[in-house]
């Protein structure tokens, strides 16, 4: 346990240094916020254009999308923060072999490296939401008795995300330098199927089935229920009570933790077998 904790601490420190020390702290803060806020603005403009050309204004759908997108910042950064560790250590810093042969758990190391990303993402989510409420008329009402449930759901959601990130890490042991395809693609998967921006009901029935199989769907739903209970846009998950959803989240985060261990170890095993641990694949 002690080694785990030490590894975790060092990796978290390293991750923070790598993320932030290329520039002045204030510039780093601006940088961390500009990207997600600009991402939110894309949606704002999409909505603006839609309303501008003669369609009915639809503030409920807009709030739905805006809140979902704000929380999606977690998905992008946590997933990227985990699987990118292997790719950047291998291709860019070329330190992976030295870290890998050191007597620590590489799994814990990766989790540690991702922690700073979670922190920065939380900051960006808060800013984005605040901006939406202040200037864009986004509707948020978090009641006091919902806070414990909200905190629990956040914790579980992040755990699921970390686990998924590690699964991807396990896979990227075996693949070439695809940071970008992965960075866009996997979050894209959740962007489409998890009811982040639009209700699941717009998807074809097979798409809805995929959505219901991904725990993040429930995470987004419960988050939105607790934060913006008055929207009433989605009906797909209306049959589930808050507690059912929480239970589903608990089960799935445990399942995903196991899965991530399995995939990670498998990826690692095959990478060692094929001599791919420290390959470089530039072109």
């Amino acid at each position, binding site marked *: 346990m002690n080694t785990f904790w030490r590894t975790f601490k060092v990796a978290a420190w390293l991750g923070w240094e790598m993320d932030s020390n290329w*520039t002045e702290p204030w510039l780093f803060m601006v940088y961390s916020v500009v990207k*997600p806020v600009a991402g939110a603005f894309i949606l704002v403009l*999409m909505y603006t254009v839609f309303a501008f050309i003669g369609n009915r204004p*639809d503030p409920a759908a807009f709030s739905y999308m805006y809140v979902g997108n704000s929380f999606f910042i977690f998905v992008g950064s946590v997933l990227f923060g985990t699987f990118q560790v292997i790719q950047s250590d291998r291709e860019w810093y070329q330190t992976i072999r030295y870290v890998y042969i050191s007597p620590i758990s590489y799994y814990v190391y990766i989790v540690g490296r991702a922690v700073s990303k979670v922190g920065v993402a939380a900051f960006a989510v808060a800013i984005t939401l605040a901006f939406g409420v202040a200037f864009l008329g986004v509707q948020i009402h978090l009641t006091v008795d919902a806070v414990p449930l909200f905190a629990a759901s956040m914790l579980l959601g992040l755990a699921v995300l970390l686990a998924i990130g590690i699964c991807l890490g396990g896979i990227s042991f075996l693949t*070439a330098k695809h940071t970008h*395809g992965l960075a866009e*693609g996997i979050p894209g998967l959740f962007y*489409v199927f998890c009811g982040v921006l639009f209700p699941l009901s717009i998807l074809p029935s097979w798409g809805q089935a995929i959505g219901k199989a991904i725990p993040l769907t429930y995470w987004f739903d419960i988050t939105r229920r607790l934060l913006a209970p008055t929207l009433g846009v989605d009906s797909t998950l209306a049959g589930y009570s808050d507690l059912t959803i929480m239970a589903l989240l608990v089960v799935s985060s445990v399942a995903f933790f196991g899965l991530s261990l399995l995939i990670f170890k498998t990826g690692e095993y095959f990478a060692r077998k094929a001599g791919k641990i420290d390959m*470089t694949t530039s072109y």
Partner: protein
Amino acid sequence: MKPATVRRTDLRYRIGLNLRAVVGRSYPRIVGANREPSWIFFEALLPLLGIAAYVFIYQSFGARSFAAAAGNTTAQAVISANTNALIASVVLGGTMVAFWLNVLWSMASQLYWEKEIGNLQLYMMAPMNRMALLGGMAVGGMVMTSMRAVSTLVAGILVFGVIFQVADPLTLLAVFFAALIALYGLGMMFASLYLLWGREAWNLSALMEEPIFFSSGFYFPVGGLFRVPGWGPIIAIIGSFVPATFGLDALRQLTLGSTAFGGQLWIFDVKTELYILVFMAVLFLILARYSLRYLETLAKREGKLTSRHQ
């Protein structure tokens, strides 16, 4: 082997040399991408999902609007047409995003990357023109990326049922290639600057994703941004320095008809935008050449052409 060759310097020789250099440098990109089969999945198919998300947003907006207009068939027809045009705009933007990302990550940051892996000094020692090197990267990058661009387009038409009406295919091609050359010209210019900025370059590329998607109107007609009172036009004008802005605006006019969106969301007419793009293409290429030459001299003076391997 032959005895010492006489070295030629005539124009024909130089053209041949630089063409070979272009082919040589584009080769690893073209075969390299195919050699790693995971590439097709990761670089061409996965990113489609992100674009699909934007498509579904408009579908969902459209469906709600459509339902609300129940009983009014004319209004419903307008809503359907608008929704199709918006989705088509997203699909076109998605094809352009592929190129823009390639420009950022495989052009702009490439020279810096080459330096780190030790190739840059070998390139700088060879007699070919440095623009041939960048040209080779660009050509390779375009070929590599067109797969993703095409798959986006095909998915748009087959999966999302987008309807394009192309009346003037020649102008369409002209606009597309002018925009592409201008984009890669910009990337070449960045390539030399990144060499100067070093590690910060990575973050710079990351910073030019969402904000540029936004300011250049990758996922919505950029005219919408011009119509936001106050800050909108300012952001849009800044965004127009990225050739994708005019390129997309012209492509959307050419594929959706200039009357789409009630004709209210275009910046200029297609001809003007084409001229601007050609101008940008020439300008960026020239600037790229000079900034590269400047950077090369600077690097040679300070001993920065090599970094890790002495």
